[in-house]
């Protein structure tokens, strides 16, 4: 080595980024470059002449000690990576036996090690995610043209194809023909433009059986934003679809049955109104003809009996009308609008009062407006108020109070009279069809009025009830949702 070479060599040693030391056969420092001095945090003078083990006692018992000793003894070069705890460093160590000495290079590879570690944990995480996805879902990956490049076990299981049969094909293999061209066109348009597509697909397995999958297709985009592959994640919803289908069928069946029943009811109503009315008209009319043409030849008893026939025919007519009105309500659609209950009540009252001789004192306090079917509300008010008029008619000062109040998202309307009232023991029978709490002798009626009230109020989502003390009037309530 000439002088120039020695200078170059020294310059290299000084400037190199690796630490370099040279040890004699007694492990004493012979040479230490600048980087090694800085790394060890001691002056060159402190180092030279000391043994490696004195200065780095923490290496004893580690791979560093065993490798260096092995290299020294065997006169063989060695390279290894080691973690040196006191400096919290990862080192790449290269050992070269050179004449009697041992040259040791230390390269700080901590940053690479750390990067490697985080890459490892990242990769592990990714593989865990993939594992979780494979466990939970049906997964397929296709290339940009839709050719299957990966199919997981679940995909093979549900499609009944082997992985080899799937890979290299496109999804037409499992197309059930259920969805139209438009459907797939939309799907492709979405994903090829880089958007996620979600939907429910009916596919066909190898054996021809159909299965439903809830599908999410995620395009993986390259730096230019173009999809380079698509990942399809699916879950089996065949059973849900079947259940949906059954439910749909059940609903249809129910609708059919309701329709059938409604038609039956309409036919029944028609039959009642037509077939019962015709003979009734004959009874009415012929009785009337007898009355007109022969009443003067009848004695009093004969005329009384004829009167009974006429009276009962008239009642039967009312009964048929009421029953019809009741059964018609069943199929009737509600036509809801904002109803001015105050005005409606006033109108109903003035109409009803006209028909009675003994006018009651009616007080309409405060009737809140409500969204309801106006015609039907009119019917409810007519029935309740006419009842109040009827049952208070035998009192000396018949009084009726009509009022309403808000309560818990409902409006509660009430019609109160000071009439005969009823025994609360029978309150449950009040709103039943043809249920009456008074005899025909006491108060005339068919027992349909309150049943109609109940049906109308129920159709509006409200309820009906009543309070009374026998002999001391009754108060009827109905509530409607606000």
């Amino acid at each position: 080595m000439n002088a120039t070479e020695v200078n170059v060599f020294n310059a290299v040693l000084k400037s190199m980024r690796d630490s370099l030391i040279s040890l004699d056969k007694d492990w004493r420092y012979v040479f230490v470059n600048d980087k090694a001095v800085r790394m060890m945090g001691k002056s060159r003078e402190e180092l030279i002449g000391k043994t490696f083990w004195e200065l780095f006692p923490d290496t004893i018992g580690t791979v560093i000690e065993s490798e260096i000793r092995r290299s020294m003894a065997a006169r063989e070069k060695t390279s290894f990576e080691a973690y040196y705890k006191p400096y919290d460093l990862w080192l790449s160590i290269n050992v070269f036996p050179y004449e009697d000495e041992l040259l040791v290079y230390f390269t700080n590879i901590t940053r690479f090690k750390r990067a490697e570690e985080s890459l490892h944990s990242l990769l592990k995480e990714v593989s865990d995610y993939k594992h979780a996805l494979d466990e939970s879902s049906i997964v397929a990956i296709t290339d940009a043209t839709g050719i299957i490049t990966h199919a997981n076990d679940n995909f093979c299981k549900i499609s009944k194809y082997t992985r080899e049969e799937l890979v290299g094909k496109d999804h037409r293999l499992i197309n059930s023909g259920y969805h139209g061209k438009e459907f797939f066109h939309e799907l492709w348009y979405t994903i090829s433009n880089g958007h996620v597509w979600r939907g429910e697909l009916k596919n066909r397995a190898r054996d021809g059986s159909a299965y439903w999958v809830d599908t999410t297709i995620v395009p993986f985009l390259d730096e230019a934003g173009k999809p380079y592959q698509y990942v399809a994640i699916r879950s089996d919803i065949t059973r849900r679809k079947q259940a949906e289908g059954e439910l749909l069928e059940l609903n249809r069946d129910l609708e059919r049955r309701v329709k059938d029943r409604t038609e039956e009811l309409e036919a029944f109503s028609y039959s009642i109104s037509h077939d019962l009315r015709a003979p009734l008209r004959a009874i009415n009319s012929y009785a009337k003809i007898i009355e007109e043409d022969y009443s003067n030849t009848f004695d009093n008893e004969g005329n009384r009996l004829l009167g009974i026939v006429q009276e009962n025919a008239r009642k039967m007519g009312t009964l048929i009308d009421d029953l019809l009105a009741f059964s018609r309500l069943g199929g009737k659609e509600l036509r809801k609008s904002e109803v001015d209950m105050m005005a409606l009540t006033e109108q109903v009252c003035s109409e009803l009062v006209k028909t009675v001789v003994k006018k009651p004192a009616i007080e309409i306090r405060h009737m809140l407006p409500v969204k309801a079917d106006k015609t039907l509300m009119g019917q409810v008010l007519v029935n309740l108020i006419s009842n109040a008029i009827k049952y208070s008619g035998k009192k000396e000062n018949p009084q009726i109070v009509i009022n309403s109040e808000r309560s818990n998202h409902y409006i509660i309307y009430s019609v109160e009279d000071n009439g005969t009232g009823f025994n609360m023991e029978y309150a449950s029978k009040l709103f039943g069809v043809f249920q009456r709490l008074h005899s025909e002798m006491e108060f005339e009626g068919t027992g349909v009025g309150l049943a109609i009230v109940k049906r109308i109020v129920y159709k509006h989502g409200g309820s009906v009830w009543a309070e009374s003390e026998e002999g001391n009037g009754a108060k009827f309530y109905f509530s409607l949702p606000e």
Partner: protein
Amino acid sequence: MNQELEILLIEDNPHDAELVIRALKKNHVVNHIVHLTDGVIALDFLFGRGKYEGRKTNIKPRLILLDLKMPKMNGLEVLQAIKDNDLTKQIPVVVLTSSKENPDIEQSYLLGANSFIVKPVDYDSFRQVITDLGMYWLVVNHPPH
């Protein structure tokens, strides 16, 4: 009255028919009424067929009262036959039924019924309706020539 036939009543219920005739005659609105009890016979009468073979079909009723519910041929079929035939289609037809619930109201008008009347159960009202009906179609209304 230059025509001897004013009303043709097609009604199978004898009591309803009697009440109609009684009501019409009582107020002397109508005197010439032919009552037939089913649709087949009524069409034979109008078109001069069957047992009415040879009847002068140019003598037409000025009004037909037609019940809907009849055996053999129902009122709607009779109505269609009347309105489909040039000989009879100008004759006003009033359809009678017992109920306004009747789903045939629409159909009756579509087939060319001139009026649709619900027979009241109460006799006073019934008599009034029938009298008004006769008055309107035979006295007030002006038929084509």
